[in-house]
């Protein structure tokens, strides 16, 4: 059963069509990737799914229910969480506080509970802190718990964003270029984490990524966008050899090249 179903979604900004007639679905428990050259409309698409933008037309269903017209926080409550291409951590807050903010929507305590420091509030808070700590351990960030998020290394910040997103206990997590700016070793580590993560946290994954090695290695299904339109979809092997994809990335000249030798095309896409 698909966790996310997007049908014929179009987004226009004034005269510019950023996303045109996109249809896409993410199966429960799967890892799905959206790729495409810069400016293809991938991040716009993420913003449509998470409620930051509203689609001009089309339908977005999460577990069969429409999320069109909902605000980002309401979409988050339906079980969708995300990371950002340009990291958006709460810089002045500590690492563990960032994760605790992710848990916000699961904390039940009210104003009176906070003011009177009721036992239930205290209990809930301690449990949340422990859970946040476990998440940090999972991402190897536990020693940094009292560090300000803005002081972390780039790679650590990317990981913290994922940890924070997972803290919301999402059904679907959207990762926007999780490996951007990471060195090969960090990327390798991240690849492993993403692979395991789906199963361990029971979360489906939709990611945007430019690192083709990572995408080909972990994705079960890939969608390719170009100029705001979906130009191809399929499993990694289909995508690797699809002439339309190669054209989008490298221009029409490369297609002839690709047709001449499939292995060549393989490397060029990477």
């Amino acid at each position: 059963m698909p966790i996310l179903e997007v049908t014929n979604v179009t987004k226009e900004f004034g005269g510019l069509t950023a996303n045109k007639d996109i249809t896409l679905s993410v199966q429960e428990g799967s890892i799905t990737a959206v790729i495409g050259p810069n400016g293809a409309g991938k991040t716009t698409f993420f913003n449509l799914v998470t409620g930051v933008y509203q689609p001009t037309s089309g339908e977005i269903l999460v577990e069969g229910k429409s999320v069109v017209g909902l605000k980002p926080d309401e979409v988050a409550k339906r079980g969708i969480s995300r990371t950002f291409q340009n990291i958006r951590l709460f810089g002045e807050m500590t690492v563990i506080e960032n994760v605790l903010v992710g848990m916000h929507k699961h904390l039940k305590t009210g104003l009176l509970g906070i003011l009177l420091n009721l036992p239930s509030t205290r209990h809930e808070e301690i449990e949340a802190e422990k859970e946040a700590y476990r998440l940090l351990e999972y991402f190897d960030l536990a020693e940094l718990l009292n560090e300000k998020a803005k002081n972390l290394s780039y790679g650590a910040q990317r990981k913290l964003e994922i940890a924070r997103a997972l803290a919301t206990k999402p059904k679907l997590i959207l990762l926007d270029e999780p490996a951007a700016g990471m060195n090969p070793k960090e990327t390798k580590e991240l690849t492993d984490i993403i692979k395991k993560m789906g199963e361990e946290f029971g979360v489906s994954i939709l990611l945007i990524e430019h690192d083709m090695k990572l995408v080909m290695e972990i994705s079960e299904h890939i969608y390719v966008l170009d100029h705001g339109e979906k130009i191809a979809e399929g499993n990694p092997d289909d995508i690797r050899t699809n002439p339309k994809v190669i054209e989008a990335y490298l221009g029409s000249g490369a297609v002839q090249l690709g047709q001449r030798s499939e292995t060549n095309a393989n490397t060029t896409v990477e």
Partner: protein
Amino acid sequence: MMKEKLIGFLQNKWSQVILFTLFVVITSLSLYLSQKSVVAFLLLLASLLILYYMKLKNLTKWIIGGGILFILLPMASSGGPAFQSYMEVATMVGIYVAMALGLNIVVGLAGLLDLGFVAFFAVGAYSYAIFATPQASNFMPFGSYPLGGESFWIFLIIGGICAAIAGVLIGIPVLRVKGDYLAIVTLGFGEIIRIVFNNLDRPVNFTNGAMGISSVTPPSIFGIQLVFPHHFYFVTLVILAFTIFAVLRFEHSKLGRSWKAVRENEIAAQAMGIPLVKTKLLAFALGATFSGMMGVVFAAKQAFIDPTSFTLLESFTILVMVVLGGMGSVPGVILGAALVTILNLQVLTELTNWVNQLTLNGIINVPDALSPAKMQKLIFGLLLVIFALYRPIGLIPAKNKKFDEKKLKTNRLAIDRENTVAIDKDNV
């Protein structure tokens, strides 16, 4: 060598306690014995700052601090004829500290620049003043007014609630507006409320307009009327204690975290499921509550209020307190509010008197235009610019809560231990 020894001595807990006790005893005694010693009074207040930096448990600090404020300060200053004026200053400090703490929720934690904060103070003050004078009979269809002095205690809550409602009413249109505009819109609202209070003497006379409301019924408790500054000092202190307690609770709860998250990055906060408008409204409403409560105290203490007490300058004064002390930092804001209030009420007037004295004696000639009492705006302006440029974190910067790694780990260790025990058993 000497220096190291001295530092070592000063960092020792017990030597700190001894020195501190000595300091408090000397200042209290000199305050008690001297006829009028502003310096001793200020030094005694400063002992609280020293206390803050001492190596003691938090609870101990609270108890000592409470003891100084509730018992020592009123006793020590009761010695001379200036008793009531000391208490007056201390009361004003308390009122401003509570207001600054309220604004700190809005500006410091939630990152919303509110430039009309005094509006909530005004709402609180008018809510009591109207009902504690015959003013209310102009429009109330039932009941007889003024209400008795006992109603003051209920009005502390009503005033807080009225201010919170005003906060929400202002917030609903304002908080849809993006960041920078907020400052202007709140500034506008601050002015609107003042203009409205200034003109609400017709068609129905609610506020008595620019004439103000006088002869506000003094509060009473157990049949005693509270009229002297030292009475209000204790009332203020109790409310202040509640305020500090509450803001600390808020800051370290999920609420405080959601405010800070909104301040740090609205889009990410929303993506984490935090509703923006609701979170900001709550900051507005809760911040306003403390201001409203102190408004009630202010109206009762002054026994007279008019719109001139609630000008833009007041809003900016509270903002200066927050920026100076450290946005988002409770101890910082307390210090900032105390410093600015004392500067306003004591230092500037003392300086002016001194300058006037010198001018009278012909020693120097300072023209009236440059008298220190008139320099308030210049000083505030300089403070704002200097702090924003060189120390935006303020005098006592905000600190994040430190989590104890060991405590958070316990769970897993326990499981590990169980596992090891199980393995050991297997081995046996």
